[in-house]
């Protein structure tokens, strides 16, 4: 039992170190800019938790972030750098709205079909990059990024053109989906919706996924081409499957946002979710539970950051800086793993035990 706790502490410790490092550096920056860091962080917390609307917002934002980070983490486990989760998300939103607006079906089948289309759309968008990598050895960083742009401009084209709401006074947005197709709200005066149950279900599915043989295959493929081929795995096939699943989860995040929050297409729905999802996946150490916690943490930062800006005048970019710092820390994580630090903790532990 104590062994298990030890293991958990060991797993969480680097993440905590990175987060506190980022928050501390952020505090120093606030001091340099002539403000009070304690007031700033207090405002941030107030912004995230002071009333039920804000609290519900932290969950609202966490849902798509978590789903996208879970998607990204599948690719990362296989050492594929899928940085185009935003594009996969966008394709998911487009297909969801298309199903809702143009497939004249009863509500329940529409919602289900919308879900399936969003998943498949995101999956194909990711899978295309996977196929290009498997077939032509095309670098996925470039292809996923390019596909991200294509998705963003495709969305812009649609909302300025063929899908523009005829009664929308020329705003670049589509018509809204019908009331019956929206995910029911969970609280009065907040935006939290039943999509959170879908998200939780997918979180559990992911926990299960990493215990499945397919999950094992993906992890093994991530250990190196030679060893996975040696173990009888068809690397090319696994690359494509990895990217299909990775993109599919972001597609589901798109479905969730359409049915729960936006209810229509608008330009740039993905915002910077794609890049935040990468940070969340890495901070969560590619572990589903770690990702869920990290996603919530980032969501608090985002929701609280706006209030902080309003209350204290410290710009929202502090949140971006903290995010950037965490990226830097994650990348230099090897530094946190140096022998000397390990020895330090081992020695202490050893003395404790004997």
């Amino acid at each position: 039992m104590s062994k298990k706790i030890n293991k958990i502490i060991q797993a969480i410790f680097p993440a905590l170190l990175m987060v506190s490092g980022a928050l501390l550096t952020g505090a120093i920056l606030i001091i340099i800019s002539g403000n009070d860091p304690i007031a700033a962080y207090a405002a941030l917390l107030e912004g995230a938790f002071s009333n039920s609307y804000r609290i519900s917002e932290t969950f609202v934002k966490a849902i798509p972030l978590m789903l996208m980070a879970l998607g990204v983490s599948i690719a990362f486990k296989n050492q594929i750098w899928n940085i185009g989760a935003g594009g996969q998300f966008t394709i998911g939103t487009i297909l969801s709205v298309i199903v809702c607006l143009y497939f004249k079906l009863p509500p329940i089948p529409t919602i289900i079909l919308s879900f399936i289309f969003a998943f498949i759309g995101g999956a194909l968008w990711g899978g295309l990059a996977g196929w290009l990598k498997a077939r032509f050895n095309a670098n996925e960083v470039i292809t996923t990024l390019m596909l991200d742009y294509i998705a963003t401009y495709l969305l812009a084209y649609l909302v300025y053109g063929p899908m523009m709401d005829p009664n929308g006074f020329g705003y670049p947005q589509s018509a809204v989906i019908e009331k019956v197709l929206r995910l029911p709200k969970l609280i009065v005066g907040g935006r939290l919706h039943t999509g959170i149950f879908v998200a939780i279900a997918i979180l559990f599915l992911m926990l299960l996924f990493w215990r499945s043989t397919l999950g094992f295959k993906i992890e093994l493929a991530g250990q190196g081409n030679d060893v996975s081929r040696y173990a009888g795995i068809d690397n090319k096939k696994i690359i494509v499957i990895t990217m299909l699943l990775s993109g599919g989860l972001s597609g589901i995040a798109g479905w969730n946002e359409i049915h729960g929050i936006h209810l229509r297409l608008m330009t740039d729905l993905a915002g910077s979710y794609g890049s935040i999802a990468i940070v969340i996946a890495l901070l969560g150490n590619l572990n589903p539970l770690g990702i869920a916690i990290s996603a919530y943490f980032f969501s608090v930062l985002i929701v609280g950051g706006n209030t902080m800006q309003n209350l204290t005048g410290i710009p929202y970019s502090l949140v971006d800086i903290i995010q950037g710092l965490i990226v830097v820390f994650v990348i230099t994580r090897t530094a946190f793993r140096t022998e000397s630090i390990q020895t330090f903790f081992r020695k202490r532990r050893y003395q404790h035990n004997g």
Partner: protein
Amino acid sequence: MRNITKIFGHLKANDAVDFKLRENSIHGLLGENGAGKTTLMNVLYGLYRQEEGEIYIHGQKTDIVSPLKAISSGIGMVHQHFMLARPLTVVENIMLGRKSSRGIFLDTRKVAAEIRELSDRYHLMVDPYARIWQLSVGQQQRVEILTTIYQGANILILDEPTAVLTPQEAETLFSILRQMRDDGKSMILITHKLEEILSVVDDVTILRDGKMISSFKVTPATTKEELSRLMVGRDVLFDFNPAAVKPGKERLGMKDLRVKNDKGLPAVNNFSLSVSEGEIVGLAGVDGNGQKELAEALTGLRPAEGGKIFINGIEAENKPPAFFIHQGVAHIPEDRQNMGLAMGFCVSKNLIIKRFCQQPYAKNGLMNYKNIKNHAQKMIQDFQIKTNSTEDITRDLSGGNQQKVILARELADEPSVLIANQPTRGLDVGATEYVRSRLLEARSKGAAILLISADIEEIIQLSDRIAVIYNGELMGILPKGSQPETIGLLMMGKRQGENTGVKENQ
């Protein structure tokens, strides 16, 4: 080194070890796999920090906090896995990370001249302008040695330097070491080959389970048996004399097989050989003569350019690796770090990477980690793999214990065909004995075994027939009981019948 203790987790890899290196001497460091040899040397080289103990150099207490400090204290290390930048030249490698006399400009010419001088002095035969990837393993090793000398090393650590060398290259290395000794330098030599201890080493220190067991001068009266008893704590069997068995039908066949290497050049040419049920065919050859490419073609990892492969009578050339695994073809690959093991996986997972889809390790698409763990516990017991737990990351195991993980996996499920490429390389005497007996056991259970080895001794001990490969070609097949000299000649490329007086056997 006095009273050195180094702890990993709950394991004392070094437990109050005293180690004394005399000036002007070659000191052998012996011990079973996982005894703590590499760890002790990593402490001396500043890669690990000891929990307890002090290091004295020339009588002076020295705190070696980093490899840089070690180098400035005159300590150099040649690791088991080379640390050279392959696309660069020898000079460039040696200059990496060093200050130049011309400020920001690199004074390649001057350094090259110095290198040539040092190389001549110790007969290292290193061309400063050769690119690393063009060099043989033995040459690369000499570049590493040269680097340490250039950095001013008086104490040189060599971690299993001969594991990757041919006997000739090893001889060259030893004469270099002897000359360096005469020049006032001291060397620490880690090895599992007891003959080497007896022939080149002045003193020997033996570690067991992290503790220093014994340290003494090697005399002509010292014997292999004595050393291995100190190391393992029991008598070790050096001679196997497997009873002749009548081989059954063919399980592994090659006909006019042609395979290319990574550079796209022919590596195996018109190779024909057959291995039958219950038979060990030894494939002797100097490293790099096409053995790796052949083994990979025989397991689906490398395309056959021409010719045929038969597995259990089925035509199998260019089938995917999964087909071979399905047919029960086990493979102990030469490259254990990249091919044989997922270094980032824990031991228990590595033990099943080839059968993770099968019962009892998985059911209905879900892994059964309880069964996987139980299996791992059994394997760790059987093969005496030294690890804290089944969940230890394989990268943290000692070199020999990593090899044992591969062996345990490949021998566990009674293979029908076994391609064993250097199966005992890097293993201590006890483990070598165990693996050889397991190979014989697999044979008696009917496996067809192709034993690829550069170690003539091993080939002779185990093989029912001996094939020799040179430059990708089959030089001939010799019967059991052939003389080492005869095999050696073929390994050097002298064809059978060509003034060797040996008749073709097939």
